[in-house]
């Protein structure tokens, strides 16, 4: 990656503490525009906390405290006045799929409506595009009125992705999205991500090292709240990453 690339997210000395433990111990790195950044590391190493700081949903966890600076497009997220705009700029997909107890159509149209879009044709178009992008359209196009919560797990996860895309985010964060999804669906979603790369910046938190290898341009390895290493995939997945620990983790020697 050349340095000429625009910085989309800048994370500077980010510390996240919960009541009795520290989830992130001061990590710093940048995310460039239109790249897929893989984030790998064992469970409980603070990856999800990092995502929650980016769209400031960390403030809904009363016992969590975040310090340090996270900037999106050069703006400090903690000081942003319009937090809703920030959250629309960042699409989030968490491990467990959540279909809202609304129709499939309304699930996808929820965010645009909340943002003030009321025009029926605009909404129709948007819903169709998002469902197509998340590879769900063909399966549900004839029953957009049925409940989103009644879909299968894999379908609900794609619905969740469609919803994350519905507010036309510039950044898409996925947190171990394949945990509740079968391998075939995982492959389909991975294909979707490859296509979306040209349109947005993607942060792919995953516990599957190979998934990061397949999809990401660069990969960060976080362990126990520390950033061990971040570099191009060529380096991280080579025989000689900068840290021995990275090599061991990537090659399954621990973790």
């Amino acid at each position: 990656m050349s340095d000429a690339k625009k910085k989309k997210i800048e994370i500077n000395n980010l510390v996240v503490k919960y009541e009795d433990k520290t989830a992130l111990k001061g990590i710093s790195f940048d995310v460039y525009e239109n790249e897929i950044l893989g984030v790998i590391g064992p469970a409980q190493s603070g990856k999800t906390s990092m995502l929650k700081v980016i769209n400031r949903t960390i403030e809904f966890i009363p016992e969590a405290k975040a310090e340090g600076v996270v900037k999106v497009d050069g703006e400090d997220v903690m000081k942003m006045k319009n937090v809703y705009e920030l959250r629309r700029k960042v699409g989030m997909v968490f491990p467990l799929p959540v279909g809202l107890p609304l129709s499939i159509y309304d699930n996808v149209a929820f965010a645009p409506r909340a943002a003030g879009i009321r025009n029926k044709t605009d909404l129709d178009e948007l819903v169709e595009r998002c469902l197509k992008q998340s590879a769900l359209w063909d399966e549900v196009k004839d029953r957009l009125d049925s409940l989103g919560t009644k879909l299968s797990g894999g379908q609900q996860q794609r619905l969740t992705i469609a919803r994350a895309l519905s507010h036309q985010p510039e950044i898409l964060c996925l947190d171990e999205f394949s945990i509740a999804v079968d391998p075939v669906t995982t492959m389909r979603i991975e294909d979707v991500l490859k296509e979306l790369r040209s349109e947005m910046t993607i942060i792919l938190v995953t516990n599957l090292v190979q998934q990061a290898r397949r999809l990401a341009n660069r990969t960060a390895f976080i362990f126990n709240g520390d950033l061990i290493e971040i570099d191009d995939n060529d380096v991280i997945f080579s025989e000689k990453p900068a840290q021995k620990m990275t090599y061991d983790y990537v090659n399954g020697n621990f973790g």
Partner: protein
Amino acid sequence: MGNRKQLEIITESAIEWLIRICGISAILFVFGIFFFVFREGAEFLFGGLDLWQFLTSPEWYPTSVSQKRYGVLALMAGTASVTLLSMAIAVPFGLGAAIYVSEFCGPKAKETFKIVIELLAAIPSVVWGFIGLTLMNELIITLFDAPIGLTVLNGGIILALMSVPIIVSIGEDALKAVPDSYREAAEALGSTRWQMIYRVLLPAAKNGLLAAVLLGVARAVGETMAVLMATGHAVKIPGSVLDSVRTLTATIAAELGEAPVASDHYQVLFIIGILLFTITFAVNLIADLVVKGIKEQ
């Protein structure tokens, strides 16, 4: 995408303020109740009323021409006797039923019992009072050969029937809160269901059961119409369960209509109200703390 209309955003913050105000209103109402009841009785409470005599004298002659006396001891004794008797009946039955419903019933029967208990709780107190006045009155006269059936016994039974639903439903919640693993562990060790209940379940749920009993007590102390109609109207310290009594609540209900506004008598009734408010406040507070105690474990 910042095309939400300005109006929409203003409406939203107005609604959020409204919600906040409503949330805070609960505090205002509690203070309001205390304040307004206190306000009506304050003048006499601080000027004229002999508080010691008020609490220790059994002589309640608020309308006497020669010498008015305001002693509520007999009324407190009335409340205490009816409450004690009703709890003596309602606590074993209520807890027994809670145990049966929670531990021995199948899901269908459980659902049915809970509905019946809910209906039992819905019967208005004036209907209970009416039953005390008619059915129970006759029953007590016939069974005990008593001159009058409107007695401590009558009020106690009626109040027991009224308090039982509270004790059952809160007691059942407390038992439900005991983890199933306790039950399984005990049964795996070969104890019978009954041994499991009194060795494992009751100790584990004792705080919740205590709270259930306390809320039953609060209900019984505060109940008005039923005891007004079912306990007769004798202001005296009862010697047996077949004596008539009058409770604190019944006194207010019976005399407030006749007492001229702002007279001493009228104010004393409000002071009794403060007394009642304080008693039930304390009981509810203790019950709440007991329940909190369970949650923190």
